[in-house]
């Protein structure tokens, strides 16, 4: 569950809610149908106004709005921008719909966006099919559009056209992208991960890199229009995760920054920093939010990223389950479990925990540079470069409640998490360490590393 959705009467166990800035009340009062109550994002404003499209993507998030929503009127946007407080701190305006290039007033929205006192970037979300005409691109650039966020859902025609459900869409999209690249425009690729393209995410990344994309974003399907057809497009994490990691690795090799939305952060491995489930503050018809998809994660309450990671959509959970054995949350030990009367240790699925012989805990303090850590006593420091028998300490990173240590044996590497074991409840009142490593690690390597660390930690 998302903490933001919890009942207000929950008295404990949850961390403080992030406090969102209020949208000026007078604006809200004047335009209650379009202006939200709070800023959901500190510096990004999305303006939705063009609810028409020349494609018919299978996962479309605004299918019900196309042809029915009028969008945010220009005068509402102008009033918002003209308000002395409303645009404070807004550095990026995103113009979206629908396909905004189909709207004859796009240029005027761009001009208004550029009036924002702090605005640095004006982005349009587009499928690029109408951007093959160089003078049109030049006009948008001249008006102040400096980021083109291009939907690219396939690496070749058959995949792309199957997703967009429009023959010839891939050809037109690529023409638009080529024009953007030729005019020196900044464009970013945006790929929605669905059943029809999941096997080609790395190919899409390669295509984006080959055509000069400044960034690649991968958004897992956001099931606002939840029905049987859409659920068939939702890809299980067993299939999605390795393919997405491969695509992210491709981007890294090509020097392409990435963002991933609506895939749990803990499934992104070394690319976890790419995770961003935030949503911009939006000027959009209030009826849009009536079909907001809900997200939950079983581990939201014990994960250090439980407030920023949405978890899995309810449509996903209904289709593929909670992924309880696949998720590997970064434990937030400030969220200690409730002492129970049974004295039974929770079996922490997802990690192989070594709890049989906890060592006495005295101190665990990471140095500022996170390359040196004192454990147990000052006489037993762990530092990068030290060797413990066959094990070399390769890296140390702080985590909630302790550190994680990269251990090397030859060319093999294993991350071991060392945290104060506050989970010890009934059968041991002596505070100690909990050593854990990822499920699926090579057992021989794990035993060697854990034994070496236990010997070190047990030193008086």
């Amino acid at each position, binding site marked *: 569950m998302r903490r933001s959705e919890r*009942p207000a*009467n929950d008295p404990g166990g949850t961390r403080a809610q992030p406090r969102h800035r209020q949208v000026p009340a007078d604006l809200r009062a004047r335009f209650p149908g379009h202006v939200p109550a709070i800023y959901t994002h500190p510096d990004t404003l999305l303006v939705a106004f063009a609810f028409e499209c020349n494609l018919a993507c299978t996962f479309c998030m605004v299918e019900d709005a196309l042809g029915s929503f009028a969008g945010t009127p220009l005068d509402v946007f102008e009033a918002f921008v003209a308000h002395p407080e409303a645009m404070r701190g807004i550095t990026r305006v995103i113009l979206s719909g629908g396909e905004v290039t189909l709207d004859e007033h796009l240029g005027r929205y761009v001009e208004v966006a550029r009036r924002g006192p702090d605005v640095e970037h004006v982005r349009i979300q587009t499928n690029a099919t109408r951007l093959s005409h160089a003078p049109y691109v030049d006009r948008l650039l001249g008006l102040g559009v400096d980021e083109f966020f291009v939907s690219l859902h396939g690496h070749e025609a058959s995949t792309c056209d199957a997703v967009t459900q429009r023959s010839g869409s891939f050809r037109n999209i690529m023409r638009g992208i080529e024009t953007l690249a030729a005019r020196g425009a900044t464009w970013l690729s945006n790929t929605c991960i669905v059943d029809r393209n999941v096997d080609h995410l790395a190919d899409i990344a390669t295509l984006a890199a080959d055509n000069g994309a400044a960034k690649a974003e991968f958004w897992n399907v956001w099931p606002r229009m939840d029905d049987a057809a859409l659920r068939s497009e939702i890809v299980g994490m067993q299939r999605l995760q390795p393919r997405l990691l491969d695509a992210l690795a491709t981007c890294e090799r090509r020097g392409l920054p990435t963002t991933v939305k609506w895939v749990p952060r803990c499934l992104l491995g070394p690319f976890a920093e790419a995770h961003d489930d935030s949503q911009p503050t939006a000027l959009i018809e209030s009826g849009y939010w009536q079909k907001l998809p809900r997200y*939950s994660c079983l581990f939201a309450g014990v994960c250090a990223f439980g407030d920023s990671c949405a978890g899995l959509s309810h449509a996903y959970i209904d289709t593929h389950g*909670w992924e309880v054995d696949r998720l590997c949350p970064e434990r937030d030990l400030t969220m*200690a479990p*409730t002492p129970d009367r049974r004295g039974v240790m929770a079996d922490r*699925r997802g990690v192989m925990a070594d709890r049989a012989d906890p060592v006495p805990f005295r101190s665990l303090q990471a140095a500022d540079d996170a390359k040196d850590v004192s454990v147990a006593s000052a006489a037993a420091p762990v530092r990068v470069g030290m060797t413990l028998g066959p094990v070399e300490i390769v890296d140390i990173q702080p985590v909630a409640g302790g550190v994680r240590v990269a251990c090397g044996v030859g060319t093999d590497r294993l991350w071991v998490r060392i945290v104060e074991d506050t989970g010890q409840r009934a059968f041991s009142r002596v505070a100690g360490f909990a050593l854990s490593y990822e499920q699926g690690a090579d057992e021989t390597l794990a035993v060697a590393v854990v034994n070496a660390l236990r010997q070190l930690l047990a030193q008086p």
Partner: protein
Amino acid sequence: MKTQRSGRVHRQPTAMKNSEGRPVLMDYCLLPYDAEPAADALASTTMLTAGLAAMGALDAGEALCDRIVDELGPHRTVWGIGRDHVSGEITCELYFYRRPHSQDVDLALVDSLLAPTIELASTLNDSVPWHMLSVELGAGHFGGNWPAIARIYSDVTGLSYAVDGESLVLENRYDFHHPQRDIDAILQDLRASLHAPDTAASLRDRLPPQLLDCYHVCVAQKRTADAVYFSRIDGGAFGWFLAHCDWPELVQSTWRKHASRLEHVRWDVGFSYRRSGDSITITKSGWYASF
């Protein structure tokens, strides 16, 4: 509690005032929660009335509830409407809590509240400790066809016992967990259940995401099934639950009609389950509030 026909069910919710003067309602543990009822809000007993009607004991059920309120006062009693998914029988269970460190409620008092319509076939030594006592009533009990028996619950052990004549028969075990902090314990209990396979589908069906945004998750082991309960869910989740558990249309239509006027109520729900294929089948479901 009065019926819809008498006009009292549609009155303002009968809410206790705390020291700040804010209205307070009780969950099924008889723990208070803040509520902000709208001006035209209804009492949660609106749904009790629907449940009693669905079980065919509206008049007798309402009369009993009136006697209880008259005797014990408001906000002392938890009610639940349950349905056996195999037989289809609907029952009403009433839960009587003792105030802390007191024996202000005892079996004799409950017996007197049930009489003269319902006979209670339970005898309990006054020295037996319990903090809650319940009586589950079907249409047959209200009709005087057969006696009811009491159950008692111990908040020390989390165990419940049927009081069958003079015998205490162990029935269920309950463990309450915080839905977020204690997720590991919840998962351990659910995945260890002998009444469900340890599969993704089974876990999803026992921890529906629609219900997990709750105050407590209670995991129970019972004699022939296991169960899970979710406390203080909101109206949206309650409506989902009624539909998911295929409650009779009389109940669901009552909910749909009055949901907007019952938004202040936090509902407690639960279901028992048994193993079925790679998941579970729900054998009994129920929902709870207090009056």
